[in-house]
């Protein structure tokens, strides 16, 4: 007995610790993921903290309120012989308290929320502008003033596997439904502005690691900005977040984050390629302007 009790509690502690750790440090690809990612920019971490602040407030309130309810149910249960107090029917003092206390709690939530919200709407002093266009069912990217464009569609192996009754096990496809032929290449450590629109119906451009989700609306241009940490180069993935028709689930977003130097080199190469006629007919004609860069991202995947 004396030996067994601590053993059980260690197991329980370990389970609890594992739970807490998976809350605190989620990895994007792990199964049984419980929580969102803190992301790769100062802004995404701000939003993550806000989310956690709200989460812990809710947990705290739940403990108090549910505790009170459970106590009332158990302690005043009829089967125990509890007799109802027919005079305990209202109390102005209690009503005022449980109106005012939530007001104070809400203020303590609203202040940081408003502060972060103001920051998200601050796309000034950006160094690079990218136009994002949603199509049924792919994404187009244009680096403004450079002439470089990218058309980004679901990668071929994912597309093959996702057909109804394809017989291909999605687990055998790398990054199933989250990989594209031509990813969006962006620099780290640079404040980038994205101008988001759509050609046909409403889409929504969502990259969880950036904590950006903005609707792409035909005829209108929405604005967002991000500034990825200089050391967070690598590959990050997102999806269309607004129902846009049959293949809404099949137009992922892949972000290839390069260091500023690598990005400049890459962009230069794209621009040079634009100046001469395309000589490599390996890629199909649908993405003529990006033909030569098609191979580039593959060589840089290891950066992540």
């Amino acid at each position, binding site marked *: 007995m004396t030996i067994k009790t601590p053993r059980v509690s260690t197991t329980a502690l370990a389970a609890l610790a594992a739970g807490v750790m998976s809350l605190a440090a989620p990895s*994007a*690809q792990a*199964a*049984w*993921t*419980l*929580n*969102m990612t803190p992301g790769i920019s100062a802004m995404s971490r701000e*939003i993550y903290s*806000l*989310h956690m602040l*709200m989460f812990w407030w*809710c947990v705290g309130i*739940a403990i108090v*309120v*549910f505790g009170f*309810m459970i106590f*009332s149910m158990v302690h*005043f249960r*009829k089967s125990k012989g*509890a*007799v*109802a107090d*027919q005079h*305990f*029917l*209202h109390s102005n003092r209690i*009503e005022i308290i*449980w*109106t005012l206390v939530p007001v104070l709690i*809400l203020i303590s939530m609203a202040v940081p*929320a*408003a502060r972060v*919200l103001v920051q998200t709407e601050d796309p000034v002093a950006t160094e690079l502008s990218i136009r994002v266009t949603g199509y049924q069912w792919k994404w187009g990217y244009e680096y403004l003033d450079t002439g470089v464009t990218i058309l980004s569609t679901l990668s071929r192996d994912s597309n093959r*596997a*996702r057909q109804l*009754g*394809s017989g*291909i*096990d999605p687990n055998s496809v790398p990054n199933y439904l989250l990989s594209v032929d031509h990813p969006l290449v962006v620099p780290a450590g640079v404040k980038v502005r994205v101008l988001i629109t759509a050609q*046909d*119906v*409403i889409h*929504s451009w*969502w990259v969880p690691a950036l904590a*950006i989700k*903005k*609707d792409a*609306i*035909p*005829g209108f241009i929405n604005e967002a900005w991000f500034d990825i940490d200089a050391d967070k180069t690598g590959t990050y993935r*997102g*999806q269309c977040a*607004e*129902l846009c*028709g*049959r293949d*809404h*689930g*099949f137009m992922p977003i892949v972000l290839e984050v390069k260091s500023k130097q690598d990005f400049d080199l890459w962009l230069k190469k794209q621009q040079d390629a634009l100046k001469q006629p395309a000589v490599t007919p390996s890629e199909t004609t649908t993405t003529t302007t990006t033909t030569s860069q098609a191979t580039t991202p593959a060589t840089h995947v290891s950066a992540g």
Partner: protein
Amino acid sequence: MATTEHGAAAHDDHDHKPHGFWNRWLTTTNHKDIGTLYLVFSCIMFFIGGSFAMLIRLELFKPGLQFLDPALFNTMTTMHALVMIFGAIMPAFVGLANWMIPMQIGAPDMALPRMNNFSFWILPFAFTLLLSTLFVPGGGPAGGWTMYPPLVLQTGSALPLMIFAIHLMGASSILGAINVIVTIMNMRAPGMTLLRMPLFVWTWLITAYLLIAAMPVLAGAVTMLLTDHFFGTSFFNAAGGGDPVMFQHIFWFFGHPEVYIMILPAFGIVSEIIPTFSGKPLFGYDAMVYATASIAFLSFIVWAHHMFTVGMPLSSELFFMLSTMLIAIPTGVKVFNWATTMWRGSVSFEPPMLWALAFLFMFSIGGFSGLMLAIAPADFQYQDTYFVVAHFHYVLVTGAIFAIMGAVYYWLPKWTGHMYNMSLAKWHFWLSTIFVNVLFFPQHFLGLAGMPRRVPDYAVQFTDWNMVSSIGGFGFGLSQFLFPYLIWQCAHGGAKATSKVWDTSIGLEWELPSPAPYHSWVEAPSMATIEHGVASH
């Protein structure tokens, strides 16, 4: 005594029921018959909408597409929502209102009985129209129940059918709402003052005003879709000078009050059940009425919190974030009052109370996620993910549906005159409660991990929680078959119910015999009866 065998329509007694099955049910103007029609209709729709949900969970059981084409999957999510909202939840509340409001305020019937018949019989036609879209060229509506243009304008022949179906549902709701308001305002028994009315009547009165204010807005929005598609207007077409986001503003100006249309009567039900099984009247009755009215008012100034990602100006985002957070205050007041009703009470756990308590806990969970969703910057991450799906199912399934279940188990003996099978009812409750959490709780995790809603297929890292969720879904779906079986059983026999049914039930409906006579309160209840019936606030 007018204690006649209820159920079998064979008896031709002094109730003056119309003769014959068709004559009785098609032409009835009796509030109890119409209430039954609404409830039966709602139950059928609950199973039809539920079967769509089962197909959704089947396809999402594992990654890859196994059963449904993506377009059909989108049709399933769209139809599931439309059928559950307009076919299952709203008619169930109208059915309960029909049955209970006249009995609770001491009125002989609804104020406008023929309109009452009409407002019900619109519904089968509306849903025949809606469900028929599954078989038209181009398939059923697949643009989501929110019907955002321009996507919805890509719908095939289903578009006008869906729009007309929504017009009909709206008309039915408005007629029903008018009837509720006129009944409550004009037909209360002498002595039944406004602040003596049971909370169910209060919440329905406020809901009826919300319906009258909100449904025409929806009708307007879908009519604009119709003219955009068929008559060359450009309300929502940027190329013609319109604005697709304007549809979202109009839709959610309807949509948010609609959310409260589906929850305020549930508040009323819970406010009836918890006092009965706590052995003492509702704590803070006046505060509950004012809190309900505040929530109704706020429901009209928070709509754009459904649209934080559409690119609104900062000032609008701030306004809608703060106004949405305000809702937590009256909602908190309600939860605290329910909890405090149990404090120093004598709490027993009959089936209606179990559903009400489950409502209390799980609606609160939906409230917590709602508060998180109100925080605009965090909503950029939550918007259109499974976190939202989890949120609104906690509010609508464990909120609205659980309250409806509780209401049926609460008043069923009054309707049929028989007690139902208590242990089976507890099985139904526990299976539902366990499975519904297995079904919806993991969807919070899926949403936070990055799974968007309305997708037929997903990346493999979402597999585990989706499997858990689907298993919960199948379990919840199967458990619901106990419900009609139990009602059928109770309608056809069982221990005789007393007029009080529950030891400590409070309200005028319990002053009537069980089953309630076909015509009740033909003479207004006496002052003494009212005093006894509302011996509370």
